[in-house]
């Protein structure tokens, strides 16, 4: 296999990692009936908190943990607004994105001032479990977080389909009245789903600042949260299908990076737009028979 393809596959896995984490997080929320549009802001917040904590403590893993906790905290806020108060989910989600983006930028200035070059950190290094093995060696030279993200996919599947809690999440997202009548606490399940899901979003952000970039920039998330929302529809709310969506997007993204340097005489914006165009195309095909969780966007209140 030629070098180009090997490099492409390896880059695909790297680019897909935050998408996998973010999409699985969003999946938890949406399967419980809550559209979490806070995702973009929560990822940004996670990237920032992870970066600061890792820098201050000197431990990258402590940074990741802090990002997860920060995400879960944001999920708690989202749950309070959307579940407890029954605020419109578009409003509360976008509100959280705006709030966390602003808050992170503000805190960034407090900590770092206005640096000319973005502050950086010694990032995670890649593992190469297969060493110098031809083809597979370089493909699987990846960050530990990428392996973790890949491992979480079946874990999420198991949690949703093979645990009582997962059964409750699915029931609450489809028909909260039925869950309530069966003695399930709709609020408790939705709180938990939002906190777990948002924690995963925080980890997605930390991957960008602590592994892929090793730095924190204003545009670090660059709409990846919104891509995750689209990938959920593409994957029809199924963890395994969602993985394929993340890999597809990651693949096209990695490809356009390589095309930019290939000498093709096109404005680079065209290449940049490519993954998003593919997403739209994929969505128009897959989104047509999308089956939303029936209770998505609907606050639940017992009469």
């Amino acid at each position: 296999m030629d070098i180009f393809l090997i490099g492409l596959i390896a880059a695909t896995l790297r680019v897909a990692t935050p998408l996998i984490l973010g999409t699985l997080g969003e999946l938890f929320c949406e399967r419980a009936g809550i559209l979490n549009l806070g995702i973009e802001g929560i990822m940004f917040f996670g990237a920032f908190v992870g970066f600061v904590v890792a820098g201050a403590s000197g431990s990258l893993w402590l940074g990741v943990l802090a990002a997860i906790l920060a995400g879960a905290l944001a999920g708690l806020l989202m749950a309070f607004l959307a579940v407890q108060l029954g605020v419109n989910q578009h409003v509360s989600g976008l509100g959280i994105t705006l709030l966390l983006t602003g808050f992170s930028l503000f805190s960034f200035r407090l900590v770092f001032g206005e640096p000319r070059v973005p502050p950086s950190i010694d990032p995670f290094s890649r593992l190469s479990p297969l060493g110098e093995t031809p083809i597979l060696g370089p493909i699987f030279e990846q960050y530990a977080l990428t392996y973790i993200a890949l491992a979480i996919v079946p874990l999420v599947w198991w949690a949703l389909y093979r645990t009582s809690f997962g059964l409750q999440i699915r029931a609450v997202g489809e028909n909260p009245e039925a869950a309530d009548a069966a003695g399930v606490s709709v609020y408790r399940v939705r709180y938990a789903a939002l906190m777990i899901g948002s924690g995963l979003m925080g980890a997605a952000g930390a991957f960008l600042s602590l592994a892929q970039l090793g730095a924190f920039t204003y545009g670090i998330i660059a709409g990846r949260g919104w891509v995750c929302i689209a990938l959920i529809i593409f994957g029809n709310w199924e963890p395994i299908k969602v993985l394929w969506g993340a890999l597809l997007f990651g693949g096209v993204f990695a490809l356009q990076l390589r095309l930019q340097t290939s000498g093709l005489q096109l404005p680079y914006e065209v290449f940049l737009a490519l993954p998003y165009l593919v997403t739209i195309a994929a969505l128009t095909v897959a989104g047509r028979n999308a089956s939303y969780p029936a209770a998505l966007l609907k606050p639940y209140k017992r009469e």
Partner: protein
Amino acid sequence: MIPLMHAIEMRSVTKRFGALLANDNVNFDLAPGEIHALLGENGAGKTTLMRILYGLYRADSGEIVVGGQPAHIASPKDAIGLGIGMVTQHFTLVPTLTVTENVSLGQAGGLAFDPKAARQKVADSAARFGIEINPDALVRHLSVGERQRVEIFKALYRNARVLILDEPTAVLVPQEVDVLFETLRRLQSEGLSVIFISHKLNEVMAVCQRITVLRGGRAAGTVNKSATTQKELARMMVGRETFGVTKEGARAQGEPLLRVDGLLVLDKKGWPALKGLSFDVRAGEVLGIAGVSGNGQTELTQALAGTLKPKAGNLRVGGRNLTHASPSQLAAAGVGRIPEDRHEGVVGELTVAENLALENLQDFTANGMLDHRRIRENAEKLIAEYQIKAAPTTRIRALSGGNMQKAILARALSRKPQVVIAAQPTRGLDVGATDYVRGKLLEQRDRGAAVLLISEDLDEILALSDRIAVIYEGRIVGILRAGEADAELLGLLMSGAKEMADGIKD
């Protein structure tokens, strides 16, 4: 268990919704091992009483005793804990989950959910109760009857000793009703007590030992089946010996202006809602359609409005066949409509003037543009004529129910339609507005229009109709002159206990 002890006792239970007294000092008791019917017209308070027992509503006052012990029931969880299960009118199942998952939902049992073990448990338990269900089926693939079976099983699986069924037969076809009754009798022989809500006399007589009748939120009495008749029950349910309201000034009637012949209409789920329904309404008469809600009134209204396409039969207005006409074609042919839900009859965000023009925009259009002056003048005229308390520029959603209904009347009647179709025209209105609307409908009759009045309010039907047709399960089971109507006959017809042998009586 002590044999004669009450399984459940509800003592002077009262429940208000705002100003509405839904349950008024109701006493109700259920003996162990009996099937006890809760009988009553729509709105009598049956569902409310049982939702209180199942912890879905909280009573304002009164007490509940279960198995001799005073019980505090604040949520379905408490009720389940006391061995009470309820199958509500709208099923509480998750359509995307399997039967096993639905039944297991909310049941204690560790973190891991082992589908195989759960399936086995459900299958074994179903076999023990003799209930035929497929544990692997997705609920959304099940028929209504099968879903009901799952609901009943769900209650039994949670060790219910008392089973409440809220109008369980309303959604079933006759064959399924037979199966349900067989199941209930078998469960009864195993010691289960059942509260069976219904408004159908024949069913109540077929399966129950005792019957408690609710009327207007009060218990009208409890009787033993062996000591009563359908006639007596009908009287208790409707509450009057005779109505005796004959229409003043019955008019010489003219030609049939609205003719419905053999109408077959399917509801949203694909079940036949109107099964070959026929009647006609003549110029200068009010034909009232009486019936318990859910017997096809909604579908009839929609079919006559052109929003639900009949599968068979036809619909003629003044001799013209308009079976497949669109709503606007029907309006153009001279059909004026008062829709069942007045909020669906208007666009809340638009102004009163805009709503008044909405159904005949072509009259208010010049060169493809709306003629705002004409729209406004039209509104001012109608507001004065129909005493609507609003300005032309008021958003219509801000109007009270009575004023909104007047606006709808104004829009429908100002064009002097030859056929008027009024569905539940006074539902939720205060006395003044009710009188106004009824007066307007009688005016239409006197003007020579054919008026079809579809109403679940028997008093209204009796006050306005020249003839009364009774609808039951999608068919007209009898047509009588207003003077011939008495409680017994209407009650029997409305609950399906009787069908007039000669079909349509003139």
